[in-house]
């Protein structure tokens, strides 16, 4: 409606724009480095190799499933931490961040301790139901969810704390149970925070490597996701590894750019 010269709110302040641009450069220049050094001539060959396609598909599927698991479990957890009158919230909140700090390989080991064939829980799963999670695609999803969930929980919790609790009160006076108020009032109002958390979660799951290979192993078509493929390629052909990374990047940027704009412009 107005020409670009006419900004309702003055010029962007240098104190903010300068570090913002430096930050952007810091994040993007290494990617430019990758793009510059990538052996582009091998790209088509890599891109259309069936094993890469398979790994890419598996990565997207597993990361998305892991994100769904995280949403289903993580959003309520964030709500409990932000709103529930549970004792020891401070410590719980700190504990939730633990999988973040844990080196992923150790996280994978921890999962094996619990869900592995001889794990605390896994031995019963195996004995009673014949379910064995390691070395399966389900294992990949679990490992990714374990590593990525804290991102979602913490983002959503932050959003919940910033939200005005009086709207929930208003909903209560209209007869809404806490669940209804959460679903119909709180959740829509913190949607940007949930989207941010979901993006973090998905991206983290997509890039997850250490816990996945430790817990779920590496078998093409079943548990070999892109990061695993990249890592193995690094061993023999670093150039190919870079090309694979670039492919992973492009796909994820594409997915995120497409999805986020739709999510964000939708409800607000």
């Amino acid at each position, binding site marked *: 409606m107005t020409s670009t010269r006419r900004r309702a709110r003055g010029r962007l302040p240098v104190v903010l724009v300068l570090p913002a641009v430096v930050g952007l450069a810091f994040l993007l220049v290494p990617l430019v480095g990758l793009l510059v050094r990538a052996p582009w001539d091998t790209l088509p060959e890599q891109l259309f190799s069936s094993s890469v396609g398979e790994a890419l598909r598996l990565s997207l599927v597993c990361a998305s499933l892991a994100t769904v698991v995280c949403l289903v479990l993580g959003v309520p957890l964030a709500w409990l931490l932000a709103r529930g009158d549970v004792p020891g919230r401070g410590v719980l909140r700190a504990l939730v961040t633990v999988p973040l700090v844990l080196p992923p390989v150790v996280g994978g080991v921890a999962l094996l301790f619990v869900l592995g064939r001889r794990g605390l829980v896994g031995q019963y799963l195996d004995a009673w139901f014949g379910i064995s999670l390691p070395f399966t695609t389900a294992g990949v999803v679990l490992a990714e969810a374990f590593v990525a969930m804290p991102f979602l929980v913490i983002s959503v919790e932050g959003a919940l704390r910033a939200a005005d609790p009086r709207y929930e009160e208003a909903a209560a006076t209209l007869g809404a149970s806490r669940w209804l108020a959460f679903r119909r009032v709180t959740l829509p109002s913190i949607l940007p925070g949930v989207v941010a958390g979901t993006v973090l979660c998905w991206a983290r799951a997509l890039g997850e490597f250490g816990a996945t290979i430790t817990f779920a192993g590496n*078998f093409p078509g079943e548990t070999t996701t892109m990061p695993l493929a990249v890592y193995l390629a*690094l061993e023999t052909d670093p150039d190919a590894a870079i090309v694979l990374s670039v492919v992973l990047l492009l796909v994820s940027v594409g997915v995120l750019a497409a999805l986020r704009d739709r999510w964000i412009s939708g409800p607000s």
Partner: protein
Amino acid sequence: GADSGGADSGGAEAGGAVAGKVTVFAAASLTETFTRLGEDFEAAHPGVEVVFNFGGSSALAQQIAQGAPADVFASAAPANMTQVGDAGGISGEAVTFARNRLEIAVPRGNPAGITGLADFGDADAKIALCAEQVPCGAAAKRAFEAAGVTARPDTLEQDVKAVLTKVRLGEVDAALVYRTDVRAAGGEVVGIEFPEAERTVNDYPIAPLAKARNAAGARAFIDHVRSDRGRAVLAEAGFDAP
């Protein structure tokens, strides 16, 4: 000082010129042995400091290619050394200072009753192998070819330690790992020798680097690794002599 012999006196000879810091990039599987050798070296050459950068051989090769400040590169696979050499990164020739070979590793008690490579074709047994892209995987492939067995692995790990972890935790019934790894795992993993292991020998090359800031120190350290004392330490960890 307890050591005696030509190699050691050779080291002492060079020791006169040795001073300052020696930076050694070494494969992660050498962590224990090289740490001990480094302490020995520092004791033998007062005033000298040995600094290690342990990591995956391929990552180390990448770092060297990008100008990392290294004097010595000890690789777990000749391929990574060749990579550095091709880029003109090493001065002189790389020499093999140790060898390693595969062994079958099974969890304590050997629950699946594994006896030889033939059991790796069993669909019911959980099997872990290294991926073909990494040296232990390539070696395993040679072994299976020699044995005429079609392995049916459940997972192809990115490095031998990951394989070993799964054996220790009993997640898999059998795996092929290096003898040194079985040795390091103590009593939790049982090693089973197999005849085709001859085909799986893997060489560990070491070389001074072209961009070394401490060329004399690099030479002296390599000599130290190849000395009798060095061989003894490596043998103790399960390495074969070259």
